[in-house]
């Protein structure tokens, strides 16, 4: 949303004459330019007293828009990017890894939804410890309900390491230092931190983050949803698109958790409503019922696996 004056420094053709012409048509910023009918503008420019300069100015604006865009990729390039950059991260729970054909995928926003005490935070902690141990990269953990437990993570890590190795303590310390935990208690702080994270990832190539976990996202969004206004939903959509952009552009795996609320006929349904359903790539439902083989996890939505598939898993 940059005003046209700012562009004059780099592109001297956008001079005050051009800006006056644009202002006469109600164009003051580059977003106004996008909303306007370009061919009508060109027709007006031709009737003006300095048609060439104005037409050049319009062409310059179009090329500025083009240069700021993402390039079109064809299918082969998409496949190459997916095979090179987007690997699968194992969660540490065998049942989940088998169900998802390898584990959590980088570039995907995965949602874990389930009733209370169904194991969502446990899966998050287990995945964080597994990724910290096995991959060369950090794990960023946004904790909204003070449920992050370093003791549990240390327990997972010490189980993962070889019992015969003598340096287990040092290894555990090193892995735990790759897990960065922040406490977030409202949606605005979350948006701020996500934007900071995105800027950091874009500028610093060495600071590699493999996984971002937000436990739980619904406790931040649910208080602002509701009421007649669109602002709650807009905040949710903004957070969702920001997560998807971080996941795709920086090749990260994003895991968010969601709770359940009462729905029709007394059955539980995931919180955050209908508009949230189209935001995560993968939605996994935890049943919360314990059996001999473990807890049941079902796929609610997946890009290339059919929904309805389920598996049993055990966390430790």
């Amino acid at each position, binding site marked *: 949303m940059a005003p046209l004056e700012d562009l004059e420094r780099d592109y001297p053709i956008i001079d005050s004459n051009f800006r006056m012409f644009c202002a006469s*048509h109600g164009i*003051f910023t580059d977003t106004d330019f*996008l*909303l306007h009918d370009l061919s009508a503008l060109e027709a007006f420019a031709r009737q003006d007293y300095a048609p060439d300069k104005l037409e050049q100015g319009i062409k310059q604006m179009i090329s500025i828009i083009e240069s700021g865009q993402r390039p079109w*990729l064809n*299918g082969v390039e998409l496949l190459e990017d*997916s095979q090179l950059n987007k690997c699968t991260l194992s969660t540490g729970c065998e049942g989940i890894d088998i169900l998802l054909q390898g584990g959590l995928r980088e570039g995907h926003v995965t949602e874990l939804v389930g009733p209370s005490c169904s194991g969502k935070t446990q899966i998050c902690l287990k995945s964080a410890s597994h990724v910290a141990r096995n991959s060369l990269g950090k794990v960023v953990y946004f904790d909204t309900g003070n449920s992050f437990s370093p003791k549990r993570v240390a327990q997972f890590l010490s189980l993962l390491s070889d019992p015969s190795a003598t340096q287990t303590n040092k290894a555990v310390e090193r892995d735990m230092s790759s897990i960065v935990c922040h406490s977030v208690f409202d949606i605005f702080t979350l948006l701020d931190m996500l934007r900071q994270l995105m800027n950091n990832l874009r500028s610093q190539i060495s600071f590699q983050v493999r996984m971002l976990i937000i436990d739980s996202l619904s406790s931040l969004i649910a208080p602002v949803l509701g009421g007649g206004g669109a602002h709650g939903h807009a905040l949710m959509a903004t957070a969702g698109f920001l997560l998807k952009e971080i996941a795709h552009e920086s090749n990260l795996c994003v895991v968010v958790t969601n709770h359940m609320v009462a729905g029709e*006929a007394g059955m539980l349904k995931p919180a955050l409503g209908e508009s949230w359903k189209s935001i995560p790539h993968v939605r996994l439902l935890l049943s919360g019922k314990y059996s001999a083989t473990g807890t049941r996890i079902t796929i609610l939505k997946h890009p290339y696996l059919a*929904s309805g598939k389920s598996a049993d898993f055990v966390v430790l």
Partner: protein
Amino acid sequence: MTSAFSWIAADETAEQALVRIYKKRPFLIFPPPFHRLPLRAGNVVEIVGPSPSAKTLILIQAAINCILPKEWKGVSYGGLERAVLFIDLDCRFDVSSISRALQRRIIDANGLRRSSLKGNGNEYDKELFVSSMRRFLYTRCYNSFEFLATLKTLHHRIQQEKGGSAVYMLLIDSIGAFYWMDRALPTSSTGNNNNRKSLSLQTVVETVVQEIQRLLVAHPMLVLATKSAAFGDKQSITEVIRKRPDEKMPDPRDAQNKPHRCFMPSVWQSFVSHRMLLRALDGESKHQNRPTFSTEWLLPPLNCSDHFTVNDVWICSVRIASIFFIANLIVSSFAAGLSLDPQMKCRRKCSAVTKR
């Protein structure tokens, strides 16, 4: 001086015109269960459904039908060999879904048996796969302004693709993706009344429709757009519907009578020329424990609905429920009921035809 009658001299006869038009803008008929209406360039089709209901899968199947060639090394694929443009507004597209579906389609057409579910060890024509995938062009937009910028520069991009005649489809995944963000756009309160367009959902959608219309004039294409829909009346969050234990579950056929709310502004609704509605069926219509969906054409309104189920990246028609097709169904079921290829996952029941 040219004669006065030269301006009414014919350029081509009607037959030549029809042949040329059918070659350049062919009809596209999707495999069942979406085969009811043929679609061609200039149509704007909206696929409406709740989440999840296989809308993106339908777009992928349509794209595959377009990018495959008509015939390759003696095997007929029935495609159009034209490029497709996929604008991902939902930003949830995974290239594995189209690559797996394309592999499966090539293998099926060649009649090779699938030795494993994943199909990793099977031989298929990689050259055909690569040349088809090259015709699939993809971009994603994270907000409305990126979408508008993409539409404005699309004309130049299409021109680069073999002179502009090669692109046949424009697929937009989730036209309503930025609905909530646009509704909360800050309207300028400084009183800039000198014909400045206020930033709002209405102006954004108007500009989108205008740009697509302009694009269709220069490059006639078939436009397929998905949209997620909300069904029924506005539900308040605090309302909990309690059911008495003796009440039965509502009849699934009644669910088809609930109207769906269209939340896009009317300028988009009037731009759409065809509308298809998808619903999830639940309860007794589970087919092999996989979720089943029903599809119905709302515009033009056809009084029949088809059912299909999803098997990973494949759509299988389950049964066709229509008064028109009763006779067809019974005859073909008796003829082919016992000799179904066990690899095919489609099943037709002889007597299970529901009336509307």
